[in-house]
């Protein structure tokens, strides 16, 4: 810091203060919002991965004599309507919920980037065709459409994922196309062409690297939304089938006992909210860090 103060007061024609290159992770660490989101997500994903090791017992083991047990040393969050350990079910449920959301998120990111880039770079007829498909998909309420597709395929986690991917890739495709189009008009892309670079190098070195930031931000926030949508669809009984635990499904089961045992809905509710919050916070933080208009 002392160095920065010295160079700042130096004559203006001198070379600007040269900061050491900072890694993305270090910049994220300096942003409280992003750090909070990152910590929440890392803890939750670690807990999900470590579920077999840290869960107090088998999530599907019933103990009908010990239903709705209160918080105890043996059952840190009590038991549910069938006497299953609530914490164990939450931890195993995290594996399904968090990784399904992530998987769907990565899949639609990949599809969206490919389709959007093709539309943006190719232009003309190809662009028109792809974007009309996107328009049609966007004209339906997305949750309903995902519901319809999954319903047609039959309930099940894999079918649910297919339904979600089929509906939600459109946002990325449209955004990628817009970014490619606006980036192609930037002066530095024209400079790259003026140097005589072949088109593929202009695209891969000058257009795409400047798009990564906004795409990562959208991807992060979008994964949080996917988690919510997944929970909603599971809540409606389209996702995992009993007795497998999943947060949305747990909400759905707990709903019947809302009056007598509200904690059965509160726990998965908190888990879903916290995870979605984690994605949103991280996304916001990444936006600040990656925004190319913000010069550090």
């Amino acid at each position, binding site marked *: 810091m002392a160095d920065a103060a010295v160079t700042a007061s130096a004559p203006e024609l001198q*070379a600007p203060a040269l900061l050491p290159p900072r890694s993305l992770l270090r910049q994220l660490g300096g942003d409280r919002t992003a750090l909070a989101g990152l910590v929440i997500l890392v803890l939750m994903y670690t807990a999900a991965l470590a579920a077999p090791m840290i869960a107090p017992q088998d999530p599907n083991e019933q103990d009908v004599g010990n239903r709705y047990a209160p918080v105890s040393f043996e059952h840190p969050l009590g038991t549910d309507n069938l006497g299953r350990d609530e914490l164990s079910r939450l931890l195993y449920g995290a594996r399904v919920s968090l990784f399904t959301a992530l998987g769907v998120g990565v899949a639609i990111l990949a599809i969206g980037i490919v389709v959007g880039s093709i539309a943006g770079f190719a232009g003309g007829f190809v662009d028109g065709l792809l974007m009309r498909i996107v328009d049609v998909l966007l004209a339906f309420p997305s949750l309903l459409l995902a519901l319809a597709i999954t319903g047609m395929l039959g309930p099940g986690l894999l079918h649910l994922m297919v339904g979600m991917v089929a509906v939600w890739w459109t946002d990325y495709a449209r955004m990628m196309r817009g970014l490619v189009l606006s980036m192609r008009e930037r002066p530095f892309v*024209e*400079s790259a062409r*003026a140097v005589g670079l072949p088109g593929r190098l202009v695209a891969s070195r000058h257009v795409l690297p400047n798009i990564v930031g906004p795409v990562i931000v959208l991807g992060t926030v979008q994964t949080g939304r996917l988690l919510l949508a997944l929970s909603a669809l599971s809540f409606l009984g389209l996702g995992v089938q009993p007795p497998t635990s999943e947060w949305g499904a747990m909400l759905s089961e707990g709903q019947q006992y809302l009056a007598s045992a509200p904690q059965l809905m509160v726990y998965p509710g908190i888990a879903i909210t916290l995870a979605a919050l984690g994605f949103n916070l991280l996304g916001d933080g990444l936006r600040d860090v990656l925004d190319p208009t913000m010069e550090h």
Partner: protein
Amino acid sequence: MGQASLLEVRDLTVAFESRYGLIQAVNGMSFTLKPGERIGIVGESGSGKSVTAHAITGLQPSNARVSGEARLDGVDLLRASKREMRRVRGERIGMVFQNPLHCLNPAMKIGAQIEEAVLAHTGANKNEARQRALELLDQVGIPSPSRSAQEHPHHFSGGMRQRVMIAIALACSPQIVIADEPTTALDVTIQAQIIDLLAETCEKYGAAVILITHDLGILAGFAERIVVMYAGRVAEQGDVDSIYYRPAHPYTLGLLQSVTRIDEARRDRLVPIAGNPPSPVLLPSGCVFHPRCPYAQTVCSEKVPALERVGGTDHLAACHFADEIGALRAVNTAS
């Protein structure tokens, strides 16, 4: 004279297709450039000077319709394939653009961007390209090249970035450097430095320069010849002395009168040119300058004046009264 020309532009016409019909941006532009020569193209916004540069280098937008010819060493650039044009750009014609703040890729290190330009046309390996990049950075006056090469553009000021752009333009030792308003976005104090640098480095590389600007003042110490453009046409062209001391087109005269000068008796006010440049969709009849011209006669709105020789050997003007205007200015200077 007598020397073979390097670039010969003949009747270059560029029109843009738009929903309002064809927009004539450049209309019958002609000029020649000799090896190592420095010429300036002057005109106000929309006069077609940048469009000319883009058309010559094949960087015009897809809705542009280009005709005429632009021969570089005999090869017509306007009819060359995309592949050939890609080789011409960078290797034979280097370009420096108006906005140095946005002309460098923010996601790429300075050094890498120069290396890329070197690698685009030479068979250099990675290591040689790096050496060449450092050498170029040094030649354009960037302090501590090896450290600067590792920086991203946002650590550089506008003037520094324009120096980097000049380095990129010179990377493959081109025969021509086209600088399109290279100093417009810079502080006045930096402008002179950049123009000097451009002159000095291009001379070292033996490159001819086309400097496009709206500022006649910048060209005074830089260009050997000047082309004055108005509404997509050449109004006047000639060597620097003819243009500054014996302007034969009322538009050139108007430009000169609206610039402050220290080599003349002090005038109380600058004389602006009345009116605005015409819309390219609806060009005036006859001489395109006649609605703004203080000397306009009936003939001016009826007949398009040809670009004809006035006085000096290479001095051309497109005005029905070129000789009278030339005499007028001579009287003014004398008084």
